[in-house]
Structures are given as structure tokens and as C-alpha cells.
């Protein structure tokens, strides 16, 4: 089965690879002092990577496209792998001009060194997340490139909920060019915002990682109830690395409360959940693992996973999921839509015609 993977990490092996793409005065700055880094006491073990991806020479596989083929692309049958890169250097930088320059350099480096190295590899546009105007300029610069499939925004993106009208310039640019906005958690951004979990600074990465869906709930509610998808009907948004099991709760609660408090969301013309089904997609990884696998299959059914869920591996990180992690009881059609078709439609790729019905099959036991 063809596979589309919406989250593959990689990084330059050393700064000399990408530094030539960085504009002055920042090239001299980074050359002399290194990139500006926002960090904290978060414990990373080998960058949070799978230890088996470390090569014999000690380098990590995600620094090398040959290793990526051997460890991922040739193993699982990728038709398309979306390179999400890293956002440690630029995400959350309060200096928007610096962040924009770093994003430009990283985008150009990725297109020159990675997506050109393998026909299966594609990427998106990194943008300075605290400056939507500069972000929209970077989208305008690269939209239309054949290897660009989305716009990356580190989550949670800023100091206001994602649906805040201040994001208008970026939403408008994404919608104009048909590029989905791809949200991926960034511990760096959370640290920069002084809030690694919604209630403050968590003690460690374990707590941060578990609570990512809380940020996603807040951002999804904000996007939908602000009427973002009425303002920008062409806008699509992807929530990556938040899992999916929080969705029944938030979809049901949004619809229920909307019935009573609709006057506070006057831009909406339909139930909140209907905008989600039409405009938002959710990555599988890290897929929840309940004691009873049939419970997971039931949640897939509750959220119409055959419409809104896309596969993401998170290679080479420690919480990597193989495609086989999907519930065994999913029907063949649903499995194909999650592993391929939903993302293909999002990225404007041809989807093979099939005669099977598209609705979710009931989970069998």
C-alpha cells in the first residue's frame, strides 16, 4: 500500500551545510557565535531520537538521506515523505527579522539538499511564528515550488490562541495558495512562551509530551469558534503529534456548548464539528495504546477517521509509529485513507479511484 508520511524529521549534519543560505548580518553572527538557542532543563536523550538510527560513525540517521532511505523510505513503501525538519533554532525567537532569515535559509537548504535528493521527499515552508506578516511573505516567496506541500507552524504558535485575528496575514496566504497549515509541537516555542503546559512550566518532557493535546484542544476551539474557516474557506489545518483520542470530547463539547452560546460565535454558519471534518486533519502519532485495542478502533469510528486522520511516523524520534500501529480491526478502505488518501487529497495528489464506500466501517472484534 502506498504511504504518505506527514512527519519526518531531519537536520543538517553541521552548520556549514546551511550557513551559505543565511543572509547577512546573521550569517556572520551565526558563524561567529552559533545560532540563537532557546533552551531549558528539558532532558533530551540523543535529541529524543531512536537509538537504532545512530550510524556507526556516531551520527544520527536523520542527518543523512541515504540512512533515511535505509531506515524509513525503503522499509515502509513511502510514496511521499514530508520533511518537517527541526524548529529548535528559529521557533519562538522574539526577533522576527532574525527568525525570518533563519527560516528562509533553512527552507532553501532543505529544497537544495534534501527534497532534490529523493523524489519521494517533499517539505513545507518554515515561517517566523511570532510575525504573521513576515510569515506571509515567506509563503509568497516559495508557494508554487513543486516540492512544497504545506506551511509549518510550531505549536503552540504564539502568545494568543491560534484563531486570533492577528494571524490573518498567514491564514490568507495559506488559503490563497492552497497550502495546509501544518502544526507541530515545539517545546522551544512553549519555553519561549513561558508555558510548556497550559498551566505553566512542566517539570520535564514527560509531562510536556502528555499534555500536547491540551494545547491542540485550545487551538482547535479557537480556530473553529473564531469563524476562521468562514473567513478563509480554502484554509486547511493539520494537527500533528497530538494523537487523536481527545477528539470525541472536544468535538462533542464544542457542538453542545455552541447550541447554547451561539451568539458568542456569530460567524459560524454550521456546527463547529462540521468545520473540523471539512478543514482539519490529525496525525496518528503518537497513537494512544489502550489496554483493549478495540477501544481505539471505536474512537477511530467516533471521529470518522477515514475522513480526518493522516499517518505520521515522527521518524527518527523515540515515539515513532510504524504504519502497522493502526488498529488491526480497521477495514481496508479506512486503512488506505489514513495511510494515503486523506493526505493525498490534502496535498493535491491523485488518489486512485476505488469503488468502495468511503464511510467508516464498524470496528469488528
Amino acid at each position, binding site marked *: 500500500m502506498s504511504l504518505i508520511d506527514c512527519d519526518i524529521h531531519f537536520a543538517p549534519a553541521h552548520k556549514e551545510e546551511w550557513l551559505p543560505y543565511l543572509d547577512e548580518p546573521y550569517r556572520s553572527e551565526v558563524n561567529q557565535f552559533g545560532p540563537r538557542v532557546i533552551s531549558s532543563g528539558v532532558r533530551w536523550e540523543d535529541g529524543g531520537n531512536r537509538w*537504532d538510527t545512530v550510524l556507526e560513525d556516531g551520527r544520527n540517521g536523520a542527518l543523512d538521506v541515504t540512512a533515511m532511505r535505509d531506515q524509513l523510505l525503503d522499509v515502509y513503501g513511502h510514496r511521499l515523505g514530508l520533511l518537517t525538519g527541526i524548529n529548535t533554532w528559529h521557533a519562538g525567537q522574539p526577533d522576527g527579522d532574525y527568525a525570518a532569515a533563519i527560516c528562509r535559509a533553512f527552507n532553501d537548504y532543505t529544497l537544495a539538499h534534501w527534497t532534490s535528493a529523493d523524489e519521494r521527499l517533499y517539505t513545507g515552508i518554515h515561517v517566523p511564528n511570532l510575525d504573521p506578516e513576515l510569515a506571509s511573505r515567506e509563503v509568497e516567496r516559495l508557494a508554487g515550488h513543486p516540492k512544497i506541500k504545506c506551511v509549518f507552524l510550531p505549536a503552540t504558535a504564539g502568545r494568543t490562541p491560534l484563531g486570533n485575528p492577528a494571524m490573518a496575514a498567514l491564514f490568507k496566504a495559506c488559503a490563497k495558495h492552497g497550502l495546509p497549515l501544518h502544526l507541530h509541537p515545539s517545546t522551544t516555542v512553549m519555553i519561549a512562551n513561558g508555558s510548556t503546559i497550559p498551566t505553566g512550566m512542566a517539570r520535564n518532557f514527560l509531562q510536556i509530551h502528555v499534555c500536547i493535546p491540551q494545547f491542540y484542544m485550545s487551538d482547535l476551539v479557537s480556530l473553529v469558534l473564531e469563524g476562521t474557516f468562514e473567513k478563509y474557506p480554502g484554509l486547511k489545518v493539520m494537527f500533528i503529534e497530538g494523537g487523536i483520542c481527545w477528539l470525541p470530547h472536544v468535538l462533542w463539547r464544542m457542538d453542545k456548548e455552541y447550541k447554547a452560546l451561539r451568539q458568542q460565535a456569530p460567524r459560524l454558519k454550521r456546527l463547529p464539528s462540521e468545520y473540523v471534518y471539512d478543514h482539519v486533519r490529525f496525525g496518528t502519532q503518537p497513537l494512544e495504546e489502550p489496554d483493549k485495542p478495540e477501544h481505539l478502533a471505536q474512537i477511530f469510528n467516533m471521529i470518522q477517521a477515514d475522513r480526518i486522520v493522516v499517518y505520521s511516523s515522527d521518524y527518527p524520534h523515540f515515539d*515513532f509509529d510504524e504504519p502497522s500501529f493502526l488498529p488491526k480491526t480497521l477495514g481496508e478502505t479506512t486503512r488506505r485513507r489514513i495511510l494515503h488518501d486523506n493526505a493525498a487529497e490534502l496535498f493535491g495528489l491523485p488518489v486512485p479511484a476505488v469503488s468502495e464506500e468511503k464511510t467508516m466501517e464498524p470496528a469488528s472484534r
Partner: protein
Amino acid sequence: MSNTASPSATATPTPAAASAEAAAVEKNWTEVARLDSLQPGVPKIILVAGKSIGLIRDKNQVHALLNYCPHAGAPVCTKARVSGFVGTDSDGNLTYNEETKVLRCPWHHWEFYLATGLPVVKTRGRLKRFDVRVREGVVELVM
């Protein structure tokens, strides 16, 4: 209440264990490595009878584990990390027990007790272990 499984405490041999040891004499031991070729805490992967097995040395003892993780099927010993046990004492102070070794899977970093193959955090499955002995510097195991 603890949510972790207990490590196996090696103890005085029980009659059943003594009986098992006697039976082991009859087992077909296969020479697989020299002890001095094993770096403590660094798994060595060998192939025996078509099975990938990780040999892990802890001082002068060797553990042999099937190179397969019951969680997601990863080659659990390949580039796995072995360390002591991080926990707390009865007062809640952090402790590090060098004697109780745990192996962490290279993929999802789950922990398993080296001595038993049991998962540290309760879950289904355990690592499959093989009987191992070291005689005159030679590591032997029974498939």
C-alpha cells in the same frame, strides 16, 4: 501503590530451581562468544539457529535475550541502553540502584529488567530470555 513490576530477586535456590538446574546439565549448550569480547552494558547481537539474540554482560554475568520487543516488534537489543534502576526510597528521595539493571528499547525507550525480561511498567509481554552460562571465559547458551 507501585505501578511497577518487581525485579526478580535472585534468592536461595528452591527445590524446583535445583531440579531445573539438574535438567540443564542435559541441555545442549552452544558456544556463542568469549566473555572478554563483551563490553559491559553494551549489547552484542548474534545469530543462533536463525534467531537474533542480544548478549548483555553485567560484570561477569551474561544475559541472553531474544532481539524482539513485545511492544512493537523492534529489535530490542540493537543499540539498546543498559543502566541501573532510577527510583525512590521509602521517604521519596531519588535513588539509583546500580545492581538492578534495566534495558531500554532503542525505539520507544521502554524499560525491561535485565534479570527477568519483565517490563518495569506493567504491560503485556516480556523479553524472552535464554539460559546462559560462562565457563572458562566462554559464553554458552541453550536455545
